[in-house]
């Protein structure tokens, strides 16, 4: 007993060091699954407030650039309006929406980016919207240029988004031309490229082909821009192509984003759990 006591007395500093270090490791790798969000929620509520104040100040520096991009996007949206299209059909009945044929499937909540990073191994983005504005976890986030990420933590007024530039981010993507789909994830080094996997070897593909979301996951609707094919190559012992995607979103310059609210999500999850129960 005396020896044990003496041991603790002699190595108390080292024991303190090791135990605190283990606690840190526990904190770090516990949140890897992005499931337990208690610490994350507290953290994003605290830092959300600081970042919002800071962005409130620095916003003035980027007003011109921001309004330019908003004007450009307005122009693009205006093109899509029915009024700016010429109706070629001369003599036909129009399909109107009175019979309730179209049901809203997705809505988009606008949000402001209040903190952003691109050079960590897992990058987080903070938004100034949260639970009270209808955000929940696992909603997709995109902007005018392309996809941005996925909501991981929400507090009452803020949300933390796991950026595409994260080790744990995966998205279902397809080639716009041929509809072949695969999984896309970030390679961890360059903030402008990502890797697309599981595209079969026989698929016709060339540099510059557009890659969009497949709509198979509940995160994003179909055909949201992701990027273009930068290069691709095959390895003799594999059945799939290696595709490097040049991302269309400029992650160093994010200001306003859209958060996807998917009305079909609850039903899809029910379906998913039913299918897995019978496995």
């Amino acid at each position: 007993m005396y020896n044990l006591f003496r041991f603790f007395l002699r190595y108390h500093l080292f024991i303190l060091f090791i135990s605190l270090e283990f606690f840190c490791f526990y904190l770090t790798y516990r949140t890897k699954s992005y499931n337990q969000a208690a610490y994350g929620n507290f953290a994003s509520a605290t830092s959300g407030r600081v970042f919002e104040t800071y962005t409130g100040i620095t916003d003035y520096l980027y007003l011109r650039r921001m309004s330019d991009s908003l004007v450009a996007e307005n122009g693009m949206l205006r093109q899509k309006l029915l009024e700016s299209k010429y109706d070629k059909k001369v003599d036909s009945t129009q399909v109107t929406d009175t019979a309730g044929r179209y049901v809203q499937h997705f809505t988009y909540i606008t949000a402001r980016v209040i903190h952003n990073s691109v050079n960590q191994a897992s990058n987080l983005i903070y938004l100034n919207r949260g639970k009270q504005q209808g955000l929940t976890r696992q909603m997709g986030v995109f902007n005018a240029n392309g996809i941005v990420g996925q909501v991981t933590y929400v507090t009452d007024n803020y949300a933390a988004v796991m950026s595409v530039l994260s080790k744990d981010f995966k998205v279902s993507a397809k080639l716009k031309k041929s509809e072949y789909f695969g999984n896309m994830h970030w390679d961890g080094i360059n903030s402008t490229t990502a890797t697309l996997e599981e595209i079969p070897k026989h698929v016709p593909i060339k540099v510059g082909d557009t890659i969009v979301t497949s709509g198979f996951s509940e995160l994003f609707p179909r055909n949201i821009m992701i990027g273009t094919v930068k290069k691709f190559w095959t390895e003799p012992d594999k059945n799939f192509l290696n595709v490097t995607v040049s991302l269309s979103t400029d992650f160093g310059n994010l200001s306003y984003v859209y958060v996807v609210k998917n009305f079909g999500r609850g039903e899809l999850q029910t379906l998913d759990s039913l299918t897995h129960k019978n496995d």
Partner: protein
Amino acid sequence: MISQIPVNLLRFFLLLMMQILIFSNINFSSFINPYVFPLFILLLPFETPRWLLMVLGFFSGLALDIFLGSTGMHAAACLLIGYLRPFLISIITPKGTEFEISPNIYGQGLTWFAVYLGVATSLYLGFYFLMEAATFLNFFFLLIKIILSAIVSVAFMLIFLYLFSSKKVRRFA
């Protein structure tokens, strides 16, 4: 000793704000992530007990983690620096040197500080980046990232020291 508390508290908030609002916000490149925050632990008074160094390292790192969303990684790295600091100081300081209360660039000189900050920052960044990557894949990328980030961090730390150090060197009688 009492007058050291407000000075260090002020330095803690200054470094924390500089780190989260400037250095972690400007995104130089994926190879250069400067971290000036460890300077808080490195500038604590020489007489600080070792257990207090570790406890302060842990909690200051945790504060940084809250803002950078890295849950525990900076706490682990700051803790490591707090634990190793006494060994490092005893290795690089010649025997019989007179000490001030706290490390001071006008007291110890540029060479001593460059070695001190260089070794401590490399350890900090090496530990942090490895924890962040959680893999030895891309080892050369990590190595280059650690070296470049350490050089830039130390340069910023030295600028900070020249800006905010008091020129009056107080020695023990």
